């Protein structure tokens, strides 16, 4: 028996480029959508897209038929909230396909200025059940960006229970700790050590003594201190499961990776999704997909299934 088409909607491949040049490459490699923004409003962005660059990026993406999501997901204080309506108003002129938010201030500011753009709810670690997603659905969200600590079973249940789109990170590093405090700077200052650069380009990492093989990237920016996972999620093997689960968007996180790496990852997932969607019944992955990623993989960082098969206790 030959199956020629899949009833499932074809999921999008979502990438997070750091520059216009990388955006071109990732869309060229098969990304259906890009999530970009500026650091003033977006959390842990791979790169900076101030308004003119955002406009250009949106134009570039659209020429290739790709969607653009504006990332406005910082935890906001009063000062930033005050700047929000103007920023959203300017964004509105470019009409991004969605606005990614975490703070309800975004919902309020959009109401204030009468801006009607679909929202993607991204509360990072706190997006863990469909009922909360449905709540945000009532406030204009069309998509939930799931916590990376959910397992496959939970993702399936979530997707089945809610009319919202579901975005799952399929590849890359994940944030595991976010503090507003500048903890590295504080520590170095406290001990009279040279502070130097503590941003993502320094390549700082922390090792917990019981886990000497796990290198956790650490960096500081205007949002404080971020600690990232010691491994990279890689769900290439699970493309069929995730498509069958009805996952709508496959996110490839580009943070702390080279454009070449991201391009290779996008190409691999693009091929897997296309092949499975075209013919789920006789799907065979090409070993070269994973091999191409492995060739560029930092030897200190394992590829893992993340929490897909984990049962957590509490």
């Amino acid at each position, binding site marked *: 028996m030959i199956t020629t088409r899949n009833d499932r909607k074809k999921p999008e491949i979502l990438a997070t480029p750091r520059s216009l040049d990388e955006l071109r490459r990732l869309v060229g490699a098969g990304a259906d959508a890009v999530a970009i923004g500026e650091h003033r409003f977006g959390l842990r962005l791979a790169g900076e897209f101030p308004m003119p660059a955002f406009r250009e990026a949106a134009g570039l993406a659209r020429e290739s038929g790709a969607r653009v999501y504006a990332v406005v997901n910082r935890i906001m204080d009063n000062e930033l909230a005050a700047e929000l309506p103007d920023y959203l108003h300017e964004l509105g002129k470019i009409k991004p396909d969605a606005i990614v938010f975490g703070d309800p201030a975004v919902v309020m500011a959009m109401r204030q200025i009468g801006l009607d753009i679909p929202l993607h709810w991204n509360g990072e670690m706190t997006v863990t059940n469909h*009922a909360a997603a449905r709540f945000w659905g009532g406030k204009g969200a069309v998509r939930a960006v799931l916590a990376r600590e959910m397992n496959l079973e939970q993702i399936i249940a979530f997707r089945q229970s809610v009319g919202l789109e579901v975005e799952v990170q399929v590849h890359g590093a994940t944030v595991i700790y976010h503090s507003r405090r500048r903890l590295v700077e504080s520590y170095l200052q406290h001990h009279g050590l040279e502070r130097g650069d503590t941003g993502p380009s320094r390549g700082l990492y922390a090792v917990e003594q019981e886990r000497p093989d796990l290198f956790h990237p650490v960096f500081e920016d205007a949002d404080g201190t971020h600690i990232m996972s010691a491994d990279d999620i890689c769900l290439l093997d699970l493309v069929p499961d995730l498509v069958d689960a009805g996952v709508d968007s496959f996110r490839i996180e580009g943070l702390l990776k080279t454009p070449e790496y991201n391009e290779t990852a996008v190409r691999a997932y693009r091929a897997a999704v296309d092949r499975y969607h075209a013919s789920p019944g006789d799907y065979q992955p090409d070993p070269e997909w994973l091999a191409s990623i492995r060739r560029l993989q930092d030897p200190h960082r394992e590829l893992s299934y993340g929490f897909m098969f984990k049962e957590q206790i509490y």
Partner: protein
Amino acid sequence: MKGAVGMNKPELLAPAGSLEKLKYALHYGADAVYIGGRQYGLRSNADNFSVDEMREGVRIAETYGAKVYVTTNIFAHEEDLDGIADYLRQLEDAGIAAIITADPALIEVARREAPRLEVHLSTQQSTLNWLAVQFWKEEGLPRVVLAREASLADIRFIKDKVDIEIETFIHGAMCSSYSGRCVLSNHFTGRDSNRGGCVQSCRWRYDLYERGGRAVGILEREEDKFTLGAKDLGMIEHIPELVAAGIDSFKIEGRMRSLHYVASVVYAYRKAIDAWFADPGGYELRGEWIGELLKAANRPLNTGFYFREPGADDHIYEPEDKPMLVDFAGVVLEYDESTGEALIEQRNHFKPGQTVEFFSPDGVRFRMTVPELADESGRKIDAARHPLQKIRMRTESPVKPMDIMRKWLA
């Protein structure tokens, strides 16, 4: 309640990890307590309340004119959702005044199924701006617990913009991360921090390197290594500023702490708040309040984010254990005026010759040397060795039930 200068007197909100701690928190001056249930709370290791115990807690609270809140502050996963409606209806029926919740999944169910329960937004939502507070107000929430990252200026601004009750932490341990934005426990141990499984990995020690493997931090000595641990919050010196900012509820952290801790901390803040409202013009910070706090505190204190962003002096880079001044030795169950003898329930070892003091809602009553001890039946014993053992002991002055006996450490 209007104070002398038209300020509302804030609620003093204390943690109660058990029915006994609830009694002590109220007895020492809390206006409200928050407790954990057996489900949906973030302290899965705490000695949490059954519904019957909640009912009893509410009954006791009513005798003090106080309220009981229940923390239901997990971020639920799919499998946690079943049963929430039943649970919330039980809380409502038990007379619980409010739930403290971060997950909209619980907010929606509470409004629909248990409309008499107030919903307070938990600090786990990391709310820092007035627009977000306005959002929750429009959702019908009467109170928001702000993020611990909020400054006094942020709080004033929010209170000025939005007519809603604001609750902030004034004392106790703090996540160094944004609340809810830490899954270190999940990654290190498979325990879900946002469902109560936190193993406090932020207080572990880490080696810090830069690309290429060169050490950036100090690796040699354990106590000099990199860590994420924050000092505890302590705002006793700033009560007038907190009141002036219009904060409606002063929250003390610590459902896992001892009743001695809760009573001592509640006492200090109760006295400070009452003193300010009795006579704002003549208000003076008293060393005694700080002294009582220091007897309970086990980490160095600072003012968190209230006045500035925490820096090099606000995290714990030295060994955490500081020498304790006192130990919680026992509680007074009964006192017989005719014989001058107290019945004391033991909490830590004590014996004749040691110096103890009796602490009450009015402060330290007196200090004395432990005299001869007897067990409940009157048989002489050389030391109080057993937890919860009932001890007969003459006191130099009268004491009262629920007084706390502290042992001074040399």
